[in-house]
């Protein structure tokens, strides 16, 4: 058999081998057997030296053709096999995408903090500062300087927690003028004493009242106080500011209503209602059939309060307000029982 025939035979065997190779390994074995260092084709080509100079270019050309052809077949077969292999792998890798995802463990912020943050952000965006004051307060800051009359019922131990005063010359005395603040309003006085107008501040924090814990009451709850003192502050400014806050918290479509009311430390005073989000003012169970829900108390700073703070009420005017975070939470989520805010129940905390 001449070289040409032999080359042809190698070519045919290679073709058959490549066609039969079912795996990349098998294909590689074919490659080695044909074009490897010890392969058939390589061996044949090595034997070309024995050919006559006339035959050599012919056979050489042919051998190169066979080689290229075989390599092309291998390459294309490799592609096929690789594609099949990939397809197999992908198929084996398929998952049930409805299985639960691998969620990172991340904690949740308490609902009340979220509301405090939300309200804080609203006012900070309007250029307010955030102030703070002691929880254990004096009667002066909690009541007297806020214009509460000496006999005001809110001062009674029925409405205010009093704490023992270690500096009282009579140890064990049951009368004290140190108390747990019943409102965030004492911070108003502390800020007015410490700073000169213009004052634009809010003060979130805990307050305490002797209400037995039940579905609608907690002896400790959270208020956000607001105070503005500047030249030319008007009742219209109070309305504009609180309208903005109300819509930010409850939604742009909600209306507000200002009902005159009485607080010792503001005059004129009012309570603010927001239109019911359930019935939109028609009246339903949620709003006690009034169409409105009370959300906060507010008013223009009483000149007597300015007097205690040493601010001239003829030069400056201002407004103040207080809103309860628990109340906002209860309204927004229709919470059945406020006590769940205080238990630390993981199932509750993780909902928000």
């Amino acid at each position, binding site marked *: 058999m001449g070289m040409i025939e032999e080359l042809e035979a190698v070519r045919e065997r290679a073709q058959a081998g490549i066609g039969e190779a079912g795996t990349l390994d098998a294909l590689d074995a074919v490659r080695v057997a044909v074009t490897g260092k010890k392969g058939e084709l390589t061996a044949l080509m090595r034997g070309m030296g024995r050919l006559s100079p006339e035959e050599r270019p012919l056979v050489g050309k042919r051998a190169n053709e066979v080689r290229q052809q075989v390599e092309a077949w291998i390459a294309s077969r490799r592609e096929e096999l690789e594609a099949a292999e990939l397809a197999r792998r992908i198929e084996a890798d398929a998952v049930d995408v409805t299985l639960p995802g691998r969620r990172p463990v991340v904690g949740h912020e308490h609902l009340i903090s979220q509301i405090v943050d939300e309200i804080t952000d609203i006012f900070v965006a309007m250029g307010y500062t955030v102030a703070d004051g002691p929880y*254990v307060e004096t009667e002066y800051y909690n009541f007297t300087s806020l214009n509460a009359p000496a006999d005001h019922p809110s001062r009674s131990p029925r409405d205010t927690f009093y704490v023992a005063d270690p*500096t009282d010359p009579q140890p064990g005395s049951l009368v004290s003028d140190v108390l747990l603040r019943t409102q965030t309003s004492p911070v108003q006085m502390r800020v007015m004493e410490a700073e000169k107008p213009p004052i634009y501040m809010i003060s979130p924090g805990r307050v305490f009242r002797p209400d037995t814990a039940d579905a609608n009451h907690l002896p400790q709850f959270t208020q956000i106080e607001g105070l503005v003192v500047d030249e030319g502050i008007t009742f219209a400014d109070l309305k504009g*500011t609180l309208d903005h806050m109300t819509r930010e918290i409850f939604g742009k479509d909600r209306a507000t209503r200002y009902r005159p009311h009485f607080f010792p430390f503001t005059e004129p005073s009012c309570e603010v209602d927001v239109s019911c989000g359930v019935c939109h003012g028609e009246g339903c169970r949620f709003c006690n059939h009034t169409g409105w829900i009370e959300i906060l108390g507010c008013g223009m700073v009483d000149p007597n309060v300015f007097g205690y703070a040493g601010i001239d009420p003829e030069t400056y005017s201002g407004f103040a307000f207080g809103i309860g975070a628990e109340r906002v939470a209860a309204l927004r989520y229709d919470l059945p029982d406020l006590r769940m805010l205080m238990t630390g129940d*993981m199932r509750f905390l993780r909902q928000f």
Partner: protein
Amino acid sequence: MRVSYEWLGTMVDLPADPADLVKELIRTGTEVEAVERVGADLENVVVGRVVSCEPHPDSDHMHVTQVDVGDLNTDAEGNPVPLQIVCGAPNVVDAECVAVAMIGAELPGGVKIKKSKLRGVESCGMNCSQRELGIGSEHEGGIMLLPADAPVGMPIADYLGIADTVLDCEITPNRPDCLSMTGFATEVGAVLEKPVAVELPDIQREVRPASKDLVTVAIDDPELCSRYVARVVKDVKIGPSPEWLAQRVTAAGSRPINNVVDVTNYVMYLTGQPLHAFDLGKLKDRDGKRSIVVRAAREGEEIETLDGQVRQLTPDMAVITDGGETPVALAGVMGGMNSEIDDTTTEVLLESACFSPGHTSRTSRDLGLMSEASIRFERQVDAAGCAEVADIAAALFEACCGAEVCKGAVDVYPEPVTVEPITLRPSRVRQLCGADIPTDFMVACLARLGCAVVPGKPGMPIEVVPPTTRPDLTREIDLVEEVLRLWGMGYVEPSIPAARNHTGGLTEEQRREKLIGATLRESGLNETLTYNFATSGDLERLRMTDDGRGDAVAILNPLTSDQGEMRRSIVPGLLRSVAYNIDHGVPDVALYEQGRVFFGRADQAQPDEPHYVAAVYSGQWRQDGWDQRFEPFSFFDAKGAVEQLAAALKIERLRFKTANPEKYPWLQPGRAAEVLVGKERIGWCGNVHPLALADFGIDAEVVAFELDQDKLLAHAQEFRAYEDIPTLPGVEVDLALVVGEDKDYETVVQRVKSAGGKLLDDVRLFDVYRDPVRVGPGKKSMAFALTFRSPDRSLTSEEVDKTMGKLVQKVQRSLGAEVRG
């Protein structure tokens, strides 16, 4: 305050629908808590005409009546047909018109009227007696007979004139005037811009002897009582009140008692001035005169009040006494049993006085005794009106009790009330309200509120003298409020203040406080809130020393014994939350709280209130998932969170030091660390001692930390210096050291680092291994991955080997360590 719409309507022209007035009241600051329709329970009870009445075929006393109710009952074609009603009352035979309770009516006693059969005869309703309708006591005589011309089909409540609407109003403490019908009418007149007219009865005839010849009055202390007016009426005939009087008193919320008591109540509701009627005959006769002395009660003194309770009095309370001796009434709150009006009373001493708001309020509160009188005195009664009110009551005693009115009154009024005029600047009103309210409106609305108003020239202030019934109006701002609320807060156009020359925003510290919370949440902890109260003994139960935690701040009037003081640590509250979760079937708990603790100081009235941050871990992050497994929480979860906090706050010198068990008895020895920044102790971290957990009812492991947030924040930095990122590859070499258990990680690492020199770039512990045989007893093997790197060249393996050789030598020497192959 219960306001009868019918009564109010006699004083001021009202809208037909009470709901329209309610809207206006709410708009102007009177809260209406409830609108009650009186007579509403008589729905479906109407006037009916008895068209026939036949004896019941099967009964010897009942009758079968046909009762015409007009078109309220019709046949299929819509023609009126009478109702057939079986009636047991004997007087039905005389009846022309009756009160018919139709099917569907529910009578005051709870009886529901249904179609029924009585001894075989169908009955479609009931003919009612007064008692059945709840409007009188008459029953034995049979059903209520109405005149023949009574309008058939008219609701009985309308026919009898008992239909009324009562507004239950919440009156704010600054408005004592609105606790009277006249005051309320004045308010309504101002709100509706309508005139108000109140008709008051006059005394027809006065007789001798004069009141002053029968009674003397002395006020011991004008601070307790600023005015006392006494009038005497005689020949009183005690009996039931006339219907109108009983109806008004009922509508206002009192039970009719007898004509004398009802008159005093009626006049109180009318004028806001509480009155008291003494049985003159029960006071001691002192030479033909009775003596009233108002004085402070004495320590230990007692009085039996009209509700039958014996009250212990204190010197803060005021009493009306018989000649300074026996108390006969608790001033401003309630009368005494010993001088009560009864059926035999013929002479009445009427008191119209003004008692101090403060004393009345404290008396009422201290005795837990609130009355219509005390509610009014607490908010201040108009002293200027006492005499006039006494006259009104006397006139009614004359009209309703057949009394003879003794001439004049005894009036002790040491310091008559004066009202100072207030200057109101209309421009100031407009400026404060931010609304263009016309001066004319201010003048008109203040006048309607009963103020004497002297308008100034255009642009000039107005002089306003408020009525004595409005003690809340003393300053210009008080008038601004009146004008604004009557103008309507809703009409003020909202604006946002400009805040010139003011900047806001959170302070750096406030931002960092929030960062602490955010970092802890990123670390997997959930924020919770617990009470700032503590149970006395919480620290002892936890075995926590009060070292550095000051004295407990005791609450003098705690609600419950377990909230008797302020907390000195956040951890007990968090442990209660752990117990709560476990008790409710939630074993995996990871909670933190940022809050205050309260450290009392002997020389401070107010305690220190540092901010703390604390966390507890129990169980594991979550229950295992299909491809996620969680380890039970360990000391290192808590420590990791603290490290993360320090990293977030860019605190560089955070350290953990083994805690001395004697100083940290609430922690499990061996799993307890002090947390330090540099040399400052800022908190602790560790496994809570099993015995402490048992005392909090927890049967699970709990890891916790508590840090002084203020101290933590003091070490926080805004920036940390930039470090070059390595550009050249490092060479990693593993090193396993066997050291004694007494050598802690910190020591070993420090020695390795110092032995490694400049080329040692990083040391990472990747395994700790103990084995009594292969490692040896009392020893551990610590495996480190060391990275050698130079910032300016690639290291050769010879260099690394050389450095490594030196390192091993030094470490062996300084730690007594051996190197494991």
